[in-house]
């Protein structure tokens, strides 16, 4: 019932509604938008660094490509990486935390020490080294196996996996804490007295009781993963051209900034779109936390 009450209080919150509306518009625009713009906008054209006009509302970049088109297709990649990366971290973090908390004792403390050690490894190093180590391998493997789609997007796949693998630590701690507090409740003892297997107790009894916490944390993980991906793309280590993401667009814009020719549209539009998405996700996460707070 908690979910139903949470949904009601979420609908009564104008900030949450606005955030959801903005997110919906952004998702639909980045999924559908590129189909409605002329296909020539994706290709290099004669208009280099054209200022915003009716024809190109967001202006064009150095190669004459339309910025609106690039922002929308970059949004596709950023949102995709955010969602998939968060999903990977959700899967790893939840199962790790559940097992650790449910097993208890030495297993638990050993598993949590592993988390502590991983916390102290610099995330950026880990991600960069992973990309470097596995990207080309995966591409070679994919071309040998004949999976064409994987060859072009192997960088993206490695990026999603390594971001997911790096982001699960906090969730594992949260889920473990929840498991510890739930596993001695009577409904768990009853289930185990009825002879249910450990797996069933974990999945059918413990997991449903912590969906609220997990959902809230998930909405806060998505923007974190988006930021990580854009950070890497900004440094030129993430998504590779001609694919773009908000981070690589910002990097392009920042490198084109100079006091002689002010090409503000290269920075302002990608920055505004990304800011809108991140703020909406953060507001939604906060609102969800309030709505699902059991103390209310």
């Amino acid at each position, binding site marked *: 019932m908690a979910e139903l009450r949470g949904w009601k209080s979420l609908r009564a919150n104008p900030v949450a509604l606005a955030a959801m509306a903005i997110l919906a518009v952004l998702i639909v625009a980045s999924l559908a938008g590129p189909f409605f713009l002329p296909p020539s906008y994706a290709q290099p054209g004669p208009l280099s660094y054209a200022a915003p006009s009716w024809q190109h509302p967001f202006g064009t970049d150095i190669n004459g490509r339309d910025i609106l088109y690039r922002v929308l297709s970059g949004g596709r990649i950023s949102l995709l990486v955010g969602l998939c990366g968060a999903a990977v971290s959700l899967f790893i973090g939840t199962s790790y935390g559940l097992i650790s908390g449910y097993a208890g004792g030495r297993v638990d403390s050993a598993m949590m020490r592993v988390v502590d050690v991983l916390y102290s490894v610099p995330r950026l190093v880990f991600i960069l080294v992973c990309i470097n180590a596995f990207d080309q391998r995966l591409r070679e493997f994919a071309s040998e196996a004949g999976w064409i789609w994987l060859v072009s997007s192997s960088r993206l796949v490695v990026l999603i996996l390594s971001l997911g693998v790096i982001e699960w630590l906090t969730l594992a701690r949260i889920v473990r804490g929840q498991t510890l507090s739930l596993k001695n409740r009577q409904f768990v003892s009853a289930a185990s007295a009825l002879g249910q297997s450990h797996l069933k107790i974990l999945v059918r009894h413990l997991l449903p009781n912590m969906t609220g916490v997990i959902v809230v944390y998930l909405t806060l993980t998505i923007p974190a993963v988006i*930021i990580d991906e*854009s*950070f890497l793309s900004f440094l030129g280590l993430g998504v590779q051209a001609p694919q773009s993401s908000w981070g690589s667009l910002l990097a392009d814009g920042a490198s084109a900034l100079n006091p002689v020719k002010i090409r503000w549209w290269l920075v302002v539009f990608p920055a505004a779109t*990304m*800011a809108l998405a*991140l703020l909406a996700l953060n507001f939604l996460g906060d609102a969800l936390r309030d709505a699902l707070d059991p103390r209310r």
Partner: protein
Amino acid sequence: MTWARVEACHALAGPAVTGGGSLAHVLRWFVDTCPFTSHGVVSFLIRRILALVAVLFCVVTVTFFLIRVSPGGPFDAERKLPPAIEKQLLTKYKLDGTLWQQYTGYLGDLVKGDLRLSTKYRNRSVAEILAQTLPVTITLGLCAFVLATVLGTIIGVAAASGRGGPKDFFAMLFALLAISLPSFLIGPILILVFGIWLGWFPVGGWGTPQAMVLPAITLAAPYVAYIARLLRGSMIEVLGQDFVRTARAKGLKERTVLYRHALRVAILPVISFLGPLAAHLLTGSIVVETLFHIPGAGGFFVHSILNRDGFLLGGVVIVYCAMLVVFNMTVDVLYTVLDRRIRLDG
């Protein structure tokens, strides 16, 4: 501010002081944390240093093997090198032998304090490169650190004292923006507005104090916001306590009540955040250095990965990790001291 000073200030201004001046507190702390008791400061430090060695070992091992897993070597170029020369290069940079031999050899050199030669910047040692670039990164980090703590404290106190009012609203709105938006988004906007449209500060480079303003602000912005939020929360709690009412009843100026009395207690959560803060500033400076063309260690970090410069990467990673662990250790010591004082005072 050192812990002794915090303690001294607190002894003068705080609630329910027993045992007189700060010296008595200091002495008591030393007795309580005598190195031979089970949870003394010395055993704590020893445990932490052992943990540091363990973390460094893990990180070095992981980076070493991961960079070797990837195909291609440091001397790959458009033109294939003659085998004899390549062999000589491999010997010079100690990249010959089996992987295991290379690994143990590298660990041995590290124990001796030799970070080896960079394979990309030929004939320059990793130690040399670090000695040139780290001071820049540390200066930038220090500026941002001071900026984040000072500005964050001021904004947090202002928000808490004007709770519910317009001051609070705008402070928290700023905090939300600065926390949700990454530095590579804030940075270009700052460059555009203050560097280009207004022309107040240079848009890049390093060396003059003006050139440090925008990078330091970009680096510090999210942490200003975080500290302001943290402090606002704890300050609101403290402002409701009896000793604050007493201080106000005595007729002290509001400013004195806020900064002299309430802040001393409310600052504790902020102090525990200083360790992670230092860590975040260190990694955050990679983007800021790239954005503002600052010759710091961050750029070498990124390029060492692209160039497969394993030893340079190893050196940067070791220094970064060691700094992170040391920062956290310092803050933990600081915090146990402060925490102990609070328990003593009741």
